[in-house]
């Protein structure tokens, strides 16, 4: 059968539609705006998006200080005038100075307490634990990257085996972190930053002194360094756990730590 589309169109056109009520359309606009707004404000970000947003709020001075430290190291390493044994001494300096890298992030982590923001931050969706966790993750990864760059840069020029270099860098780093985490656990105020600085200075002094002790940085002492490394790692993990437990403890003693779900 031949379809007369034009005829059908004419017939269909008779089915007209009454005009809509303009008031109904206005109501639709109002309700639509309210619905959109509700949706917009009901949406919540996940932890990873939160993490990326926290990156923006880390103080620029931290990144600047890390860049300066890294550039100094790279500058020292790139000096062609240093012989291999001189480079070993330069690397010892890095080992003694690495507590500085560990320390750099802690005032940033502690700033909630130092600036009286903890009370507000503690009541938000992402609790103090997640906030501190995010800061520690960002700064910890940054530190790890820096240490990797120092290692990689030094490995080529220094005659020291890579394993020993890892130990010489990570043991002072771990020890400093442990000290600062202990401070973080017990001191929730502006003074925390000063105590962390004291820990850093102490660690630099101790490892500097040890660098003058004959045999401390020798091959024979590698076993001792390995033990130190694992001990400091275990202590680091313990202090990290304790520090996390303490983050929700703003106003009460150790015995009253909240068992707040994450």
């Amino acid at each position: 059968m031949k379809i007369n589309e034009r005829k059908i169109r004419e017939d269909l056109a008779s089915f007209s539609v009454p005009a809509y009520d303009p008031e109904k359309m206005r109501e639709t606009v109002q309700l639509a705006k309210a619905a959109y707004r509700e949706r917009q404000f009901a949406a919540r970000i996940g932890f990873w998006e939160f993490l990326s947003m926290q990156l923006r709020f880390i103080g620029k001075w931290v990144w600047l200080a890390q860049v300066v430290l890294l550039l100094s190291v790279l500058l020292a390493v790139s000096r062609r005038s240093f012989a291999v044994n001189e480079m070993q001494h330069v690397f010892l300096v890095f080992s003694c100075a690495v507590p500085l890298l560990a320390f750099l992030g802690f005032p940033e982590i502690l700033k909630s307490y130092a600036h009286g923001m903890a009370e507000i931050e503690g009541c938000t969706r992402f609790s103090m634990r997640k906030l501190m966790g995010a800061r520690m993750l960002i700064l910890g990864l940054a530190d790890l990257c820096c240490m990797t760059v120092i290692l990689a840069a030094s490995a080529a020029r220094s005659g020291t085996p890579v394993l020993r270099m890892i130990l010489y860098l990570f043991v002072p780093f771990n020890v400093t972190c442990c000290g600062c985490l202990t401070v973080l656990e017990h001191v929730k105020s502006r003074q925390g930053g000063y105590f962390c600085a004291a820990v850093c200075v102490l660690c630099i002094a101790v490892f500097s002194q040890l660098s003058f002790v004959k045999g401390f940085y020798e091959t024979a002492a590698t076993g001792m360094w390995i033990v130190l490394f694992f001990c400091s790692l275990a202590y680091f993990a313990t202090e990290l756990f304790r520090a996390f437990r303490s983050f929700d403890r703003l106003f009460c003693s150790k015995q009253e730590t909240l068992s707040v779900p994450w």
Partner: protein
Amino acid sequence: MDDERLIRRIKSGDKNALDDLIQKYYNDIYKYCYRKMGRKSDAEDITQEAFLHFCRNFDSYTQRGKCRNYLYVIARNLCANTLQKKTSLPLSSIKEEYLSENDTGLKQVDAVDSVQAALKQLPEEQRTVILLRFYQDLKLKDIAQIVDAGLSVTKYRLYQGLKTLSKLLLKEDWL
């Protein structure tokens, strides 16, 4: 203003952007719903609900298709849900509503009767294609997207729908 720009404006928080979007498509969606439902109040309610649904689920509109098509999809689903819940109204009541809304002669009312009756006799998929093609002036490509079918299937449904309509309307003319 094209849809992409409108969506960008809505996302950026422009308070008037939603206004503009609704102004742009309200009439089309309303007409479509009216021809589906046959009652003005139902059409207006479903049109409103379609826009509210669009706003509530704005994130899921990924702009893979046109905004207009997405609105038609929502409207189509809402009409189907509503029709499922309601029992079909007798033609006489539709005639009454039409008379009250449009003060026209009986001849036109009878013409509406026959067109509506003819459309009602079509299977749902064919009716949808006919409505979107002849009343909303959409391209077959867009219709295919709205009904979530291939282009050839859509063309086939259009052809079948026209064939059936032709028979029905021709029969009416003779009568």
